[in-house]
């Protein structure tokens, strides 16, 4: 019944030359994907390919109305969208074959393409806020360019899509959601996964919608033209629902659909109908040319070399110095120091955009870090809805467009809500797009207990964000001028960074002086490691810690000497991932005991990594290691229990004394 309904629709008039052009593009896509399936069958392609055979006209028609510098973000089924926009057959086939001549040097493969302002990613839904960020950048630049994001009906189960609907409508972004409704989420029919109507979802956010289909593509063509024109002129989002059907399996052989259903759609496939309707003599040369071009591209790809991955080494600089060139904020609390640092740099860099929940004045953020920023820089500071995933994605999109966004996540515990954006988007783009883009995104968030906020607002979750290639993690402390940190962030960093702050440390004064007998040294790295060193050739213990514990551990080192007759040194990294402790091995080997202190859980954490690195690197000296971290339990709200659980100067010293007894 459904198929009959589609086939009976009346055609709107489209000039023949346009029709030929559209069909030629669609045919190119189909022949490329058929060639890819053949390559896969011959073992020339590894992994996976998601073909859009049967759906080609969506990408072809949308691309007809895009201008230079419009951006497109596609999904796992992206070949058609890519070819429709770029016509780069050779780059696509080589990419999927994993060759160095691919558009991403073989790093991204089928699902992760990038050329110019075309991007794709294989994780469902997460691309929506990134595309929104790009749209925001276009709007801010007043360029009249738009951003397009391709979603499937299966993606409507992802919450981040609705967060993005909300943001796109609120910010009035020039963003076109193209919703390809092929009725299936992989192999599951939408009757099992989708409630309600597709367009009404977007309409409830105030987003204009339109519907079309690839079977009645004349109408779709005109509808798309009008919609894109309106988005470009009015700078408001819209959703285009394109009903279509995938004639091939989701991936390769994973198709459980009824063969009769597939064949019925094959009969009404617009490209098949067109090919059957045109005069062979006229169109055959075109078909032959396309086939020849695809064949040549396959041969080129097969002949090309496989990509080689070169890993950029860490900025290891073992040299240390007592010099610190900036010491603003003496006698100021860390929170105010960060706030003033942000004021300082936002004035200099208008491309810095500060977004987060409740960040505008007069509230100024839950911990007042952004106090006064929105008054001073009203075009750079924006309150956001409680949508952690979407606002991180928004920041990611801005960063792709050359902005320096700073996203505040109100509590570190909430960073889990944005993990897909961090892990599968921001951290991946530069690598998987073969260095064609950078993502200078800063995500700030306070972690740590000690304020009685209970199990879900007191955690130190750094271990969950360590070890993600492409992402650096900074743990700010009160032993180094925050201007130095932000200066490096803005001038020397092009990759996403999570900056962990600490709620208790916010209230501590900047600490640039030590008890007599101790002095600071700093490594000459982008984000220096701070060493609190004793004026002594003899050193009993090395303490390694960071972030919120830095202030406490300085107290510990000083008290160990003056009150307990033990000479200690303290190594305090600012960047905790990537991190290489081997720079400090000679210094650490001066002591016999090594204590690693953490506020987060101990299992598989920074401390584990440090001991693993030391164990691998030190072969000529026997060191005694001890880790100090909270017990294996959530953090209680009760102040008494929380105090007993978290590391503090007293229980750290006690643990050290017991270990050395």
């Amino acid at each position: 019944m459904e198929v009959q309904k589609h086939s009976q629709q009346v055609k709107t008039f489209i000039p023949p030359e346009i029709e030929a052009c559209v069909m030629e593009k669609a045919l190119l896509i189909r022949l490329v994907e058929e060639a890819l399936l053949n390559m896969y069958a011959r073992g020339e392609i590894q992994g996976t390919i998601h073909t859009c055979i049967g759906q080609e006209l969506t990408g072809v028609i949308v691309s007809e109305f895009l201008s230079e510098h419009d951006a497109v973000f596609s999904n796992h089924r992206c070949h058609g969208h890519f070819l429709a926009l770029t016509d780069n057959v050779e780059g696509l086939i080589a990419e999927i074959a994993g060759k160095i001549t691919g558009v991403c040097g073989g790093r991204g493969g089928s699902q992760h393409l990038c050329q110019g302002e075309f991007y794709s990613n294989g994780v469902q839904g997460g691309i929506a806020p990134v595309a929104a960020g790009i749209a925001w950048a276009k709007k801010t630049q007043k360029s009249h360019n738009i951003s397009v994001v391709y979603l499937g009906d299966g993606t409507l189960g992802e919450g981040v899509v609705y967060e993005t609907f909300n943001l796109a409508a609120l910010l009035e972004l020039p963003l076109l959601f193209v919703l390809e409704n092929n009725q299936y989420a992989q192999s599951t029919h939408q009757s099992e996964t989708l409630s309600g109507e597709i367009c009404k979802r977007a309409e409830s956010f105030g987003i204009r919608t339109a519907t079309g289909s690839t079977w009645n593509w004349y109408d779709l063509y005109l509808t798309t033209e009008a919609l894109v024109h309106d988005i470009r002129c009015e700078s408001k989002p819209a959703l285009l629902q394109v009903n279509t059907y995938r004639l091939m399996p989701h991936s390769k052989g994973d198709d459980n659909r009824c063969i009769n259903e597939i064949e019925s759609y094959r009969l009404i496939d617009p490209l098949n109908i067109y090919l059957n309707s045109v005069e062979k003599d006229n169109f055959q040369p075109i078909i032959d040319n396309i086939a020849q071009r695809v064949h040549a591209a396959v041969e080129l790809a097969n002949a090309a070399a496989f990509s080689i991955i070169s890993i950029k080494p860490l900025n290891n600089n073992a040299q240390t110095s007592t010099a610190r060139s900036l010491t603003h904020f003496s006698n100021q609390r860390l929170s105010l120091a960060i706030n003033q640092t942000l004021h300082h740099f936002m004035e200099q860099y208008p491309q810095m955009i500060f977004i987060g929940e409740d960040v505008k004045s007069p509230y100024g953020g839950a911990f007042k870090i952004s106090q006064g920023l929105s008054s001073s820089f009203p075009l750079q500071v924006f309150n956001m809805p409680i949508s952690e995933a979407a606002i991180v994605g928004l920041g990611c999109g801005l960063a792709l467009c050359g902005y320096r966004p700073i996203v505040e996540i109100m509590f570190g515990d909430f960073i889990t809500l944005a993990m897909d954006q961090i892990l599968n988007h921001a951290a991946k783009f530069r690598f998987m797009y073969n260095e064609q883009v950078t993502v200078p995104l800063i995500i700030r968030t306070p972690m740590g207990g000690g304020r009685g906020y209970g199990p879900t607002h007191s955690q130190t979750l750094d271990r969950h964000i360590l070890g993600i290639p492409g992402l650096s993690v900074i743990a700010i402390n009160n032993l180094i001028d925050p201007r130095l940190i932000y200066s490096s962030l803005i001038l020397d960093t092009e990759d996403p960074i999570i900056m962990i702050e600490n709620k208790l440390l916010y209230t501590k004064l900047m600490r640039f002086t030590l008890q007599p007998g101790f002095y600071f040294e700093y490594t000459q790295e982008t984000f220096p490691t701070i060493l609190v060193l004793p004026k002594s050739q003899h050193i009993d213990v090395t303490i390694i810690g960071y972030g919120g514990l830095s202030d406490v551990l300085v107290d510990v080192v000083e008290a160990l000497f003056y009150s307990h007759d033990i000479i200690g040194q303290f190594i305090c990294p600012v960047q905790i991932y990537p991190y290489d402790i081997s720079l400090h091995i000679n210094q650490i080997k001066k002591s016999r005991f090594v204590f690693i202190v953490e506020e987060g859980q101990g299992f598989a954490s920074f401390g584990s990594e440090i001991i693993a690195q030391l164990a691998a690197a030190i072969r000529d000296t026997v060191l005694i290691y001890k880790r100090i971290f909270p017990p294996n339990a959530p953090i209680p709200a009760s102040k008494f229990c929380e105090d007993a659980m978290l590391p503090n100067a007293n229980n750290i010293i006690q643990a050290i004394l017991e270990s050395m007894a």
Partner: protein
Amino acid sequence: MNTMFISKINANDDAVRIVEWLVADKSYIEIGASLVRVETSKVVVDIKAEFSGFVCQHYLPDDVVGIGEKLASFHESEVQCVANRASSPMVSSKSVENETYFSHAAKKYIVENEIDPAIFSDQGLLTLHAITQKIFPQKEKIVKDFVSNVPHQRIEKLSHRKKCEIKSLHDAKAHTLSSSLTVEFDSDPLRNELKKIRWLNGQVFPYILHVFSQLLKNHPKFTAFYADGFINYYDHIHLGIAVDIDKGLKVLVLPDANVLSLFELNMLLMESIGRYYDDTLEEKNVTGSTVTITDLSSHNIMYFHPLLNKKQSVILGIGGDSKQTGYPMSLTIVFDHQILSGKEIALFLNELKEKILDFKNVTNN
């Protein structure tokens, strides 16, 4: 670029502490404007800029800077200033060596065993273990027992001024052989007599200072010091008055006290104490004394043993107890036995006592 160095502010100090910069780093300053506030062992003074230009500071507040060290550089532009900072970063005095710091256990041990801390100079941090290793390498067990017996302690950082005072007293102690003698007398009759002089308001202290300084004219070895087999005589009798009221211990200097009348001396003393209260003491008000007097009689301390100051041969300690009949007072002289003998001090003390009690002497003033 012009460079400014820390110059010597007084004879005693070989370093000063940066209290605060009076102009922001990398900002412009005119020659002669106040640049930085530093603390000597005696006072806090402002140092003026010797050049005009954009200042590149070389030290931080609370850093201790040696005399002759580079304090700041002056540049024609802020850009040059920043470039200079990049090539010549700020220096922290925390890296300055030649210091020794004792753990509480180590400090307790050297005090209880009367060990001269000077033997541990330039050692950096010293634990009890390190000390006993150095003195009694065979007695390792002492360390463990001693540390375990040390009760929990709270530590407090000494001020720069106090550290200077300690260093100065240690130096004095290291170079003198001190001994002391005391005489005493009832002061009530004297006090009654002094009350007749209205401007003196019954105060004994200025009167004793006056008599003491007059007497010193005949005893040059009392304003001298010993060094390397020689006696070094001062040309002047500059009284140093140790004062510790509400503003910390300071030694106020009354120059050439021997040529002043009692009235003039009292006026000078009042003016100096006023400056002490007002925090307007200048370097010249607190440096250059050749003999020191300290008075604890107002606290009803009858006897005490003051510490000799560096490069001085005597210190006069005045004690007293108003609660005893006759308001007895004591005069104690601590002296350097390398220059003076007990007999000389005994004769001087008795002569001083006699002159103090000679009421005609009062009337003559």
